[in-house]
């Protein structure tokens, strides 16, 4: 059967948050046609979100039904989200920047690798990402929280609870401030202000939290960007005798027997940390038997992220859990040059919490309580409050922290599925126990400073905000792509966002994924005529 052919200037594979950033910037600044190819479905419109949220609150139901492909599962850490908007349809909207040290870990801290760009290189793109999404923020002390311009939106106000907790941590000598977030503190770009519904994850019922569907709605109403849904790109294919990508071979989920070819001048892989490497590895050919952009063997390697240690602190403070549970205080105090004898950098966040302060069925004497007894017991135990504390700490990835093709598991089309294995570099492995002990000691000291008590701590083996697999480097021996996301081996192939990261920092990664993508978009756009601004 002959393929249906679609011709365009730029083909973007994936429609998550980084794809949205690239498509929007290109459409805003360039005379360029863009086709975005998404394997998943559209998600329900915003007018349905209150109803979907209610079912989530009442029963734990997913507010994003059918947001994944049943046969696109992965062995290892993976988020089951493949839909228009991607994983950012249910992200928390938390948008800290990385610190300058993150980009020069080797030269400033003696661990890991330096990125081929600096914080200053990325600062304008951080700003742009914040403006495109609408980030409400408060700058911390300039020496630990540098930025070129002010946040586009005023900070999210601290709740009464966070004000109390701010007093506590300030007394312990730690500067903390309102967590920057892609949640509107005032109406912005046609989206309403946050009204503390407090279910940012998994769904903001009023659209005050940025999610990529907002960008796609705007772009689809114009003429430059076409979004193909339910269309899975299976291979990228080179033009004969060249290293340029010519075609994205895809298949419609509705008409799987009908192949689709998207022909473009430039191809942008925006499939996140799993599906970007996966697509390059699947795109094997005689000349590239290990997949595209992979002569160095680095595709799929150096998967990165950060782990966390969390805890709960009982404090002699009257708190009212539920005022705004998903908002927090943040500090970069421990993210700058290491404050410990050995290598450890981490963020610090503090939330209100109801842990250890909820109603219970049995009293301390193990007697069953009902009605008034439960209420009375609950009141007695809520005269004081609980704070939740958490530190992300960075992990240096090993080369074989990797995504590979799993020949034993295939999707419905017969393509091998990804297999993920996370491995620390030896230096990180050796430090892990000591690092987690230091963080727990910090929690203990915080509790003491507030005349409180550390209730419990937990260390999570999960690496959050996963990234890597197509890391950027100075040349083809150290990276899959250059600092702009352009593949060293294929001039018209870009990988954007999370996969290109060298290391995962110790703070939420999504804003950095977006800033990197916008920087890539700036480079991609140079090949197309600009619009009169």
């Amino acid at each position, binding site marked *: 059967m002959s393929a249906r052919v679609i011709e365009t200037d730029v083909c973007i594979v994936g429609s998550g948050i980084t794809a949205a950033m690239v498509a929007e910037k290109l459409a805003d600044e360039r005379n360029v046609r863009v086709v975005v190819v998404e394997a998943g479905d559209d998600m329900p419109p915003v007018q349905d979100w209150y109803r979907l949220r209610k079912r989530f609150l009442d*029963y*734990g139901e997913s507010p994003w039904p059918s947001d994944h492909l049943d046969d696109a599962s992965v062995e290892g850490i993976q*988020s089951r989200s493949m839909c228009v908007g991607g994983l950012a349809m249910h992200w928390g909207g938390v948008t800290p920047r990385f610190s300058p040290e993150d980009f020069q870990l080797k030269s400033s801290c003696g661990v890991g690798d330096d990125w081929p760009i600096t914080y200053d290189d990325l600062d304008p793109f951080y700003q742009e990402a914040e403006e495109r999404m609408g980030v409400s923020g408060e700058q911390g002390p300039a020496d630990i929280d540098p930025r070129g311009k002010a946040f586009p939106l005023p900070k*999210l106000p601290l709740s009464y609870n966070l004000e109390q907790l701010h007093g506590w941590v300030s007394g312990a000598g730690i500067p903390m401030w309102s967590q920057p977030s892609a949640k509107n503190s005032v109406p912005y770009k046609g989206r309403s202000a946050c009204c503390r519904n407090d279910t940012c994850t998994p769904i903001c019922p009023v659209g005050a939290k940025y999610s990529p569907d907002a960008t796609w709605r705007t772009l689809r109403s114009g003429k430059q960007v076409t979004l193909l849904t339910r269309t899975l790109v299976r291979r990228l294919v080179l033009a004969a005798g060249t290293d340029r990508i010519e075609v994205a071979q895809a298949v419609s989920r509705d008409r799987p027997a009908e192949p689709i070819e998207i022909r473009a001048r430039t191809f942008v892989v925006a499939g996140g940390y799993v599906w970007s490497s996966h697509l390059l590895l699947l795109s094997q050919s005689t000349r590239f038997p290990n997949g595209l952009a992979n002569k160095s063997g680095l595709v799929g390697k150096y998967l990165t992220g950060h782990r966390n240690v969390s805890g709960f602190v009982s404090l002699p403070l009257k708190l009212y859990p*539920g005022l705004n549970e998903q908002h927090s205080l943040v500090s970069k105090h421990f993210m700058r040059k290491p404050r410990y004898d050995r290598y450890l950098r981490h963020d610090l966040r503090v939330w209100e919490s109801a842990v250890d302060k909820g109603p219970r069925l049995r009293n301390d004497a193990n007697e069953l309580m009902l009605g008034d007894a439960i209420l009375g017991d609950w009141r007695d135990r809520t005269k004081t409050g609980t704070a939740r504390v958490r530190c992300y700490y960075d992990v240096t990835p090993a080369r074989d922290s990797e995504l590979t093709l799993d020949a034993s598991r295939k999707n419905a089309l017969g393509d091998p599925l990804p297999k993920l294995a996370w491995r620390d570099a030896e230096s990180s492995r050796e430090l892990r126990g000591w690092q987690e002990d230091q963080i727990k000691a910090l929690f203990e000291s915080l509790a003491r400073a507030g005349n409180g008590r550390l209730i419990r701590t937990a260390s999570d083996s999960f690496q959050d905000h996963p990234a890597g697999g197509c890391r950027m480097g100075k040349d083809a021996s150290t990276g899959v792509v250059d600092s702009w996301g352009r593949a060293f081996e294929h001039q018209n192939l870009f990988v954007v966002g999370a996969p290109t990261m060298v290391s995962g920092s110790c703070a939420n990664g999504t804003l950095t994924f977006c800033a990197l993508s916008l920087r890539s978009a700036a480079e991609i756009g140079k090949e197309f005529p600009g619009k009169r601004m």
Partner: protein
Amino acid sequence: MLSRRTFVSWLSGFGAALGIGVRARTSEAKAKDASKVASQAPPLDQATVTPLAEAVLPGELGAGFARVSRGFTQWINDYRAGAELVHPYGSTNLQRTGESPVGRWRTQLAQLDRDAQTNHHKAFGALTRDQRREIVVSALGTERTNRMPDPLDAGHVALALVAWYFAQPEAANLCYQAKIDRNQCRPLVNAPRQPLPLVDGRRSMGDGRS
């Protein structure tokens, strides 16, 4: 089980404190069968729940027992077996809601009535609050629950009702005697203010003016 990310804040707050709504309840295959069962199950009748609510919920509810019972029965009658549960970052598992507990609860409510007849020769609803509570406590004798259960997984309808009620924002308002109005739309500008005391000292009207 659901992994950390999606419920991370909620788990740290009331969700974890109450132990509700945070666990996957069944495998996908099992839930498909459960869906058939649920579609055949008649709804729970509020009239059978109110006498139980009067026995196991706080007396401060006053005239609110019927309202809470109505909320509880509406909640469980709107339950859908086989619905996809939220699947958060980092979790490959897809899980669905399990079988509706309505049938089991109806049997337990009928048993409470039989126990009332046996012990007092009256219907459960005709007993005093203390008598009803005594029967409930006896029925819960074998329950080993220490923490507030997920209402859907509670071993007895009385525990389900207690757990469901105490998970409501209204119950937190009653406990704190303040209009916290958790999970309701509240102006951001009011966030820094200490929540206002309850107007009548007994229950929140939930009007969002915290």
